[in-house]
């Protein structure tokens, strides 16, 4: 069948601009699929290898203080195969030339052997010497943010005592792939550092000689996790255990899991959308092609080509376009994926990245796209298959036109003949006109998804940091502290207002569901920390009961009035049943809230606090920072402005990347759909238009008839596209919800404007290209051939 293949290539060449437009849409879909897919696979693969090679622990717990002798008892808990006790100390740091407060965490490593769990990956330098008490290893991220290299010195405040340490190495740990200050939402490697010191030296510095305050366990299998956690919690209660947890609740691991979920969403939603558009285009084009080649199909069959051979011929055409798109998409995707993976590497501190395209991914994308294209064009291909040759040799019955709605309403006097032709074209094939509109609307909608997040994130920030968290500074104490600490904070330079809070780790249970989170007590009527209702109005804190972040409420399936079981994971670990007083609107993080005194009562403790929010006078900030560093009880200081900046920086890096790609791809889609529609209109109406030219119509007049129809459809499609865009955005927002953040479904007017502009410009460019073709319409040739 070589001649048939030659026909295929010639025709493909003739319709190359259309084929390219469709292939480009497929390139976009496949590229996104491969980009996210390869990145996800790379990150998962890297994570798995890293966890395994560097012995990431299975169970984690901190406590006030336990004697080293307890280690043996922990090790005998059934299911436990590795036990590593540690000293973990909150610290303040000073780096020469950096004026703002830096907090961090200093973790012990065994003196004379390798860690059994959570091993360090040494990037630079060496491990600390067992007999030195002034050597430290810093996390690579922190070292990088401050340009620290081995040999540099650091001033560290441990337990209120200032010490000078020498950096001997930089390292990474599977425990801190995501490195964030607890309670923070975005990494800030300059203001938060993770450091490691020898066990003996840190024990001395932190007053933990012969004792530990943190333990990590390796288990034989995942099945034992709940039993081990139970046994561990029972064993550690007398020692101030803070509640054991597994990997799912480990901060870094949880963050990674959430991110992976997001990538998975993007890896499915967007390629599916693009594929949908591509299949739509293919369907339209093949349908048209089969329609136009009725007689050729009839002739082939008359000469003994079978139905299957003919259908296969058109299928090959489809596959040629699809496969060209897939191949180009795979390369583009692999290339973009490399950049994306590198972008993720700035958030995920992996020592290495296992990035490579895997066969299942490539094969999957190929089969998925080819399969969808075949299914999508099945109707058109079936028409080619089923066309009876005797039937095909008869010319297609002339199209039936009828009076349009407008004429039935008697409005035709207001319409010129060209306008009437336009309306009749549209009305004659309402389904086709509808499909064209749907294609354009889809393009418009997809354009919106690429853009809406930018404005929305601004809104999230405003709500979180302007309406809700309004402090300048947040300080947290090493442990719950007496209420009197307020007065010492009030006495600090520049402090204008202090609002305290109490946080306690809890596990919330409702029916079968449970979630480990923070319960936060705040005083009623506060001004620096406010809770918001669904309408974003400040909420009066009820005297009784607990308020939950709306998303947490959904996760647990609770509503106002339900009774929630609260297991406190600290102190003597009381378990209480409390009524849910309501849900609060929060876009970032999740937590439960209570009135401060009520929480103190629930914990059966006096008026204790965990930290405070401060409003401060900007002019004296440097002096205030210096004083804060010297207060040993303060474990961490967060500057709100800095948090906002971190948020922006993180979002901008990722957003810029996505917005850029999404915009380019959206333009391709819009152009692909509109250009194809115009080309098909041209092939369908070419004869008619040429006849008009012969009758004396000008080029501009026939262009008006052809492009006027398209223009009208484009204008009608845009509002339709806005609706589709809202739908896709809602789908995205719904799927992207996580404990870390929920993007609200707010679409800024600029997003609509942008989408409409992309569609209109694509229409204009398509129109100009078609206009050029129209101008070159060969009148003789068109009239010579019969349709």
């Amino acid at each position, binding site marked *: 069948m070589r001649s048939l293949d030659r026909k295929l290539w010639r025709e493909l060449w003739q319709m190359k601009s259309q084929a390219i437009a469709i292939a480009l849409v497929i390139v976009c879909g496949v590229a996104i699929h491969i980009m996210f897919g390869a990145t996800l696979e790379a990150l998962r693969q890297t994570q798995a290898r890293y966890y395994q090679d560097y012995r990431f622990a299975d169970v984690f717990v901190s406590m006030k203080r336990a004697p080293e002798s307890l280690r043996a008892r922990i090790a005998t808990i059934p299911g436990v195969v590795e036990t590593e006790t540690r000293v973990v100390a909150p610290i303040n740091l000073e780096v020469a030339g950096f004026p703002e407060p830096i907090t961090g965490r200093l973790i012990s490593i065994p003196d004379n052997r390798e860690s059994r769990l959570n091993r360090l990956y040494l990037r630079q330098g060496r491990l600390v010497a067992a007999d030195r008490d002034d050597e430290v290893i810093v996390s690579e991220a922190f070292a990088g943010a401050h340009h620290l290299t081995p040999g540099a010195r650091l001033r560290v405040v441990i337990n209120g005592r200032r010490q000078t340490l020498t950096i001997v190495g930089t390292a990474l740990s599977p425990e801190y792939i995501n490195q964030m200050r607890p309670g923070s939402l975005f990494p800030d490697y300059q203001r938060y550092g993770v450091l490691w010191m020898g066990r003996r030296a840190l024990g001395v510095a932190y007053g933990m000689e012969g004792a530990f305050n943190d333990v990590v366990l390796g288990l034989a299998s995942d099945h034992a996790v709940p039993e081990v956690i139970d046994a561990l919690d029972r064993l550690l209660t007398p020692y101030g255990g803070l509640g054991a947890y597994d990997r799912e609740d480990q901060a870094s691991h949880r963050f990674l899991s959430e991110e992976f979920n997001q990538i998975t969403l993007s890896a499915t939603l967007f390629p599916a959308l693009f594929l949908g558009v591509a299949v739509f285009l293919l369907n339209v084009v093949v349908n048209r092609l089969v329609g136009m080649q009725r007689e050729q199909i*009839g002739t082939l069959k008359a000469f003994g080509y079978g139905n299957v051979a003919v259908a296969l011929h058109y299928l090959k055409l489809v596959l040629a376009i699809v496969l060209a798109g897939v191949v180009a998409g795979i390369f583009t995707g692999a290339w973009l994926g490399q950049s994306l993976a590198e972008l993720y590497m700035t958030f995920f501190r992996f020592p290495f990245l296992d990035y490579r395209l895997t066969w299942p991914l490539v094969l999957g994308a190929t089969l998925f796209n080819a399969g969808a294209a075949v299914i999508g064009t099945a109707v058109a291909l079936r028409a080619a298959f089923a066309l009876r040759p005797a039937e095909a040799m008869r010319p297609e019955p002339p199209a039936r036109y009828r009076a349009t709605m407008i004429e039935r309403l008697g409005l035709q006097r207001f319409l010129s003949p060209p306008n009437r032709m336009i309306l009749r074209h549209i009305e004659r094939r309402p389904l086709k006109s509808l499909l064209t509109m749907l294609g354009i609307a889809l393009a418009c909608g997809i354009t919106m998804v690429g853009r809406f997040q930018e404005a929305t994130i601004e809104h999230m920030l405003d709500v979180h940091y302007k309406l809700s968290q309004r402090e300048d500074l947040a300080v947290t104490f090493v442990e719950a502290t007496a209420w009197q600490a307020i007065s010492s904070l009030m006495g600090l330079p520049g402090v204008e207002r202090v609002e305290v809070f109490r946080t306690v780790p809890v596990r919330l249970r409702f029916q079968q569901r449970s979630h480990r989170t923070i319960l936060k007590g705040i005083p009623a009527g506060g001004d620096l920390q406010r809770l918001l209702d669904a309408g974003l109005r400040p909420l009066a804190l009820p005297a009784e009961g607990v308020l939950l972040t709306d998303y947490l409420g959904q996760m647990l399936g609770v509503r106002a009035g339900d009774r929630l079981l609260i297991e406190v994971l600290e102190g003597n670990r009381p378990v209480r049943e409390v009524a849910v007083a309501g849900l609060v609107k929060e876009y970032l993080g999740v937590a439960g809230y209570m009135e401060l005194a009520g929480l103190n009562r629930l914990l059966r403790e006096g008026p204790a606090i965990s930290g405070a929010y401060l409003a401060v006078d900007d002019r004296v900030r440097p002096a205030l920072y210096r004083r804060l560093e010297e207060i040993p009880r303060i474990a961490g200081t967060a500057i709100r402005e800095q948090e906002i900046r971190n948020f922006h920086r993180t979002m901008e890096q990722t957003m810029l990347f996505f917005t850029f790609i999404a915009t380019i791809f959206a333009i391709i889609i819009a152009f692909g759909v509109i250009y194809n529609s115009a080309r098909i209109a041209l092939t369908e109406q070419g004869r008619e238009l040429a006849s008009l030219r012969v009758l004396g119509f000008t080029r501009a007049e026939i262009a008006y008839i052809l492009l006027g129809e398209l223009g009208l459809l484009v204008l009608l499609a845009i509002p339709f596209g806005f609706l589709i865009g809202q739908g896709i955005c809602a789908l995205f927002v719904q799927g992207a919800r996580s404990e870390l953040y929920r993007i609200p479904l707010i679409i800024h007017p600029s997003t609509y404007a942008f989408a409409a502009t992309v569609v209109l410009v694509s229409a204009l460019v398509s129109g100009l290209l078609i206009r050029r073709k129209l101008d070159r319409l060969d009148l003789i040739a068109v009239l010579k051939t019969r349709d």
Partner: protein
Amino acid sequence: MTAFHDRVFLAQGLTKIYPMGEIQVQALRGVDLELFAGEFVVLLGPSGSGKSTLLNILGGLDSPSSGAMQYGGRNLSVYDDAELTRYRREHVGFVFQFYNLIPSLTARENVALVTEIARNPLAPEEALDLVGLADRMDHFPAQLSGGEQQRVAIARAVAKRPEVLLCDEPTGALDVQTGIRVLTVIERVNRELGTTTVVITHNAAIAAMADRVIHLSNGLIAHIDRNAQRQAPHEIVW
């Protein structure tokens, strides 16, 4: 006059009904017909009399609504689609009024399209030479005149050495001179290759070329004429 002995086609009581919504169009109302090997037959009749319908059934493009249609002793009317396809592929060559060449293929390739799936074909070049187009082989249909296109179509139809050549108004779209050239080619194929040939026309003058002329009217065979002497195409007065 040549005597034809081997019967190629035997049609008995052929009817064809096209349902068109409520009404039914009776295209054939009971046609009995025999065609013999090597014969040149002209089907004559006014427009709408059922000529194309009969030709299509002969060629396996369509099936009769009732009646029997035998080709070489096999009953075509019970053939399914795949069997009809094989029948067309192996035995029938078609020439249509509007040539129906594949516009994206050159003359040679249009012929090759058919020779590639035939069992014992002529070379495309040979077939084109037969119709006098040896020098136009690499032209696309758009670069050929109507008569040249129709000759390509004939080359395409005969290249597979079919037993029957079926032509539906092959000169309908052509001027007299060109029409004569095309008919000459058809007549030559019939004579030199011995192909049973059926030509539809509503031009009675062409009938003089035939061995037999079958007059169709309103879905029935009105009468059949036998020419004592076949006239050469160029002798025909239009």
